[in-house]
Each structure stands twice: as structure tokens, then as C-alpha cells.
């Protein structure tokens, strides 16, 4: 699938990053967004990232131009009919995603791979009721996509073996490390990492240890790069809470995933971490 035509739906942060990853590998990218301003912002972002590549001597000015010109901003979904692969990166709302895939199923060829970059919605649910659901596969990038090597490839109930294999190869060709996951709440990372936050919150709730103390212990005793509270502040406490709630709901309220009321209070108070200037720690300008 070298030099495939890749459609990307949604030119927000994730979409722009995925466009960059694909264009760098030589793919032609059709970047779709209904909002002209968002498209322009994505293009200038890609341009600035490629300029950095030139400054660091990774690519030549000419390679920069060629890569930049491989990304075609579009506002009309019909144009995606030429694509071999389409990656959806719209906001995490089921109805929105379903309507995107329902249109794609009509617009695209039957052998076009339809990938969703969801981090929290079931692939099986997104594919439900869509024509030829065997071509719909989860393709979960981690933020920031140009830096993080992992892609979770999520097999929906009806995704075919053949398509999973193709998607796996595509991820490798993007220079990424793919892992295969069956469609379960939180997939691998968002699920297995839950206790890092939840149990740390539980321990501070029980006054077992303090916030800074837990961060120190996890780094110095455990070798983690960041403590659970620093990490929540960086991710955004609201984002972290929403992920926990989603995993908890989708596991039908298994107690292991129960969200923390301490975290909920932080969200209610607008103490969201770095982006709001305060979370578990204070951040000055």
C-alpha cells in the first residue's frame, strides 16, 4: 500500500497530525473539514512542522515542498471516492461518527478501508448498521501522533481478518508500532492504565499518602517518568475523568473502574490541570 491515497476526516489537532504522518511517508492525503478556518490552520501547522524538519536537517527544502503538496484540503466528502484508506478523526460522538461512516460506505469503493481513530467508542457500535462492516477497523493513534509510535488496531465484531492484516501493514508502513486489540472498552492502553490514576486518587482520598508523595514514590520506586497526578494535570483532569467514566460505563459498572469523586470535584471546579493553570499542582503563566 505504498503511496496510497488516504482520506482524513476532521482537520483538528488529531487530523492534522495524522495528515502529517501520512504525507511524510509519501501518501497522497485528502484532508477533509467543513470548516475552512480549521483546514487553513491545519495546513499552516503542517507547514511549520515540515519547516522544523528542514531546520533540523532531516529533509531538504524540496522534500518539504513535495510533502506539503501531497496534502489536499477538501470540503466535499464526495471527493473521497478515490481513496484506498479513509481515517476518521472527528469529535468523539457516536452519532457523528455513525453518520460519517454511513456516508463513506456509499461514497467509497467496497474495498476501501474505513478506519476510525476513536479512543473510547466501540468499533462494533460505529460499524453497526453500516454497509460492508468488515472494512471498518479501529485505528487508534496516541497524542501527539507524529511522536508517539503506538497504534492500537481494533478489531470490531465484524472486521475481517484480511482487512485487519492490511491495516496492520499500513500502520507499519507509517513507521508505527501496531498492536492488535479486540473491541473491548478502553482497548488496551486506556483500560490497563486506569489503576495508575484511580488507585492513586483512592489513596489520597483515604489519606494514605499525599499527592506529591505519591508522585515521588511512583517515580523513584517505580521508575515511571511522571507521577499519576502530574500526568493527570498534563492530560487534562476532565479528559482523564471522561475516559474513566467511559470505561466504567462500558464495563457495566465493574467496581475496578469506578471513577473518583475527588477527580469529579476537580472537574466541577474547573481545576483541569495545566491548561486551566491549576489542577493537583499550581501552574504560573
Amino acid at each position, binding site marked *: 500500500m505504498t503511496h496510497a491515497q488516504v482520506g482524513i476526516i476532521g482537520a483538528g489537532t488529531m487530523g492534522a497530525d495524522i495528515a502529517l504522518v501520512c504525507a511524510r511517508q509519501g501518501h497522497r492525503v485528502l484532508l477533509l473539514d467543513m470548516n475552512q478556518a480549521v483546514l487553513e490552520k491545519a495546513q499552516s501547522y503542517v507547514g511549520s512542522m515540515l519547516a522544523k524538519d528542514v531546520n533540523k536537517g532531516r529533509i531538504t527544502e524540496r522534500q518539504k515542498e513535495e510533502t506539503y503538496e501531497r496534502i489536499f484540503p477538501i470540503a466535499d466528502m464526495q471527493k473521497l471516492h478515490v481513496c484506498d484508506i479513509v481515517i476518521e478523526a472527528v469529535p468523539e460522538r457516536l452519532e457523528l461518527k455513525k453518520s460519517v461512516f454511513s456516508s463513506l460506505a456509499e461514497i467509497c469503493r467496497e474495498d476501501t478501508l474505513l478506519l476510525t481513530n476513536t479512543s473510547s467508542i466501540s468499533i462494533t457500535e460505529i460499524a453497526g448498521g453500516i454497509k460492508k462492516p468488515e472494512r471498518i477497523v479501529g485505528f487508534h493513534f*496516541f497524542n501527539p501522533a507524529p511522536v*508517539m*509510535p*503506538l497504534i*492500537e488496531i481494533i478489531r470490531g465484531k465484524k472486521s475481517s481478518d484480511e482487512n485487519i492484516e492490511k491495516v496492520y501493514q499500513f500502520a507499519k508502513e507509517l513507521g508505527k*508500532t501496531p*498492536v*492488535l*486489540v*479486540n473491541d*473491548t472498552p478502553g*482497548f*488496551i*492502553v486506556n*483500560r*490497563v*492504565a*486506569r*489503576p*495508575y490514576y*484511580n*488507585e*492513586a486518587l483512592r*489513596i489520597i482520598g*483515604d*489519606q*494514605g*499518602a499525599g499527592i506529591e*508523595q*505519591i508522585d*515521588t*514514590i*511512583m517515580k*523513584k*520506586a*517505580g*521508575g*515511571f*517518568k511522571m507521577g*499519576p497526578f502530574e500526568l493527570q494535570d498534563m492530560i487534562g483532569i476532565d479528559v482523564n475523568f471522561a475516559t474513566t467514566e467511559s470505561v466504567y460505563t462500558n464495563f457495566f459498572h*465493574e*467496581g*475496578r*473502574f*469506578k471513577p473518583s469523586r475527588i477527580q469529579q470535584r476537580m472537574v466541577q471546579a474547573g481545576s483541569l490541570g495545566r491548561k486551566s493553570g491549576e489542577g493537583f499542582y499550581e501552574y504560573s503563566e
Partner: protein
Amino acid sequence: MSTANKTVLLAGTSSLYPELKQLLESDSYRVVSLEQLDEYKHEVRLALEVNNLDLAKKKSTIKQMDTLLPANIPILTSSLAITTTEVASWTEYPERVCGFGTFVPLVERALFEVAPALQSAPSIIEQASSFFVSFGKEVEIVEDEVGLVFPRILSLIINEAVFAVMEGTATPEDIDIAMKKGTNYPYGPLEWGDRIGLDEVFSVIRGLHRDLAEERYRPAPLLRKLVLAGRVGVRSGRGFYSYEKQEVYQP
């Protein structure tokens, strides 16, 4: 310090035992066992007890230490599977009992946690801390609860990874790759469990489940079975992965 006041008693079956022994001896401590206690009774300045999986054994070891050692000698117990307060309640001199927690390999641990029992005397807490500091570890004093902080949080991450394996969500290899590449964990949770010893990990989760009695601490059934089958990881040659034991040339 003369050799006499660098004599410590070390007892227990946890995988912490050989590493603690090595660490102490390399710091010129004399390490004696329970069996040698008669001979060295008056020289022992501190006792360390490390049993995590077998709590009956833990109880008998602690009681022996409490009976045989003078009442002023500190007893430091690994409080991974049970609270220090409960361990102290087995003794005649509970004020000398103090808990600590860590996982192997100790060379990777810059910090040990110390958890005093409700009964611990302040002087014992101080002695426990300066003992660990004496061989180069930082110390954080935390509340006495099963698994303390690091072993508790890590064990629950490993437990969740085991549930995911058990349910066929992904292979152990892919789960480990995902956690290392997706969130920068130093090790994948399953290879980490194999290195620590799945028995040690299980003892923490079972202890939390026993003491706090909540669904969130339910041990993954596969973890329990691996421990019962003796497949505890690197130490036994098999856990989530296989470790071929290298044959060592003996002249």
C-alpha cells in the same frame, strides 16, 4: 559501626529475601537466619521479615522473632499483603514492629516505603528509616495499608493487564508493547509481573481484597491460577513468558 551492631536477622520466603541479603552483605552487614538465632541472639540489632504469600508462615516467623529477640530490637516486616498493624497485633511487643514495602529488583528502587503500625513507637520508625537510608535508599513514610503505594498501584495495573489477557483482548506481548509505547511505562505490566514474581503481585491484590472487601480489588482468576501452578515468572522459568534456564557450565 562494629560487626556486632551490624548484625541483622533476615527471615522469609519472599523473592525479596535473596536480594535483601545481598544488598545488606555488600554493605558489610552480617545477615543471620532464624536457625542461627541462638548463636547470635545478643548481637542482632534489627530483624527483617519477608513473607508475603504464606500468611501462616508470616505469623509464625514474626512470633518467633518476637519471642526470641530482646524487646527493644526493631522488627521490620514487609507489609505487602497485610497491614503492619495486624502483624504487630500478633506480638507481645507491638511497639517495635514497623512495616516497609518494595518489590524486586531492589537495584532499581531508589526509594523504599515505610509504613508504621498504629502501635509503632516513634523511635522504631526512625530506626527503620535510617536503616534503609544506610544502604542508599530514600524513604517515604506512608499510612499503613496493604501494598503501601507503589506495590499497590503497580499490582493493580498488572491485575488489569491479566484480566485483559484472560478475556482475549490482546496477547501479553501486545499489551506490554502498548503500555511501553503508548504511555512510556518502564516495562510492560506482564513482563514486569514476571520479573517481580506473580506470587508477590497476587499477594498484594489478595490482601487488598481481603482487607478492603471491594470488587475493585478482585484478583484476576488467571493470576491466581498461575500462582497456584507455580508459574510465577522469571524465578520459576515460566509466567506470562517462558524463560529458558541457562545451563551453567560446571567444571
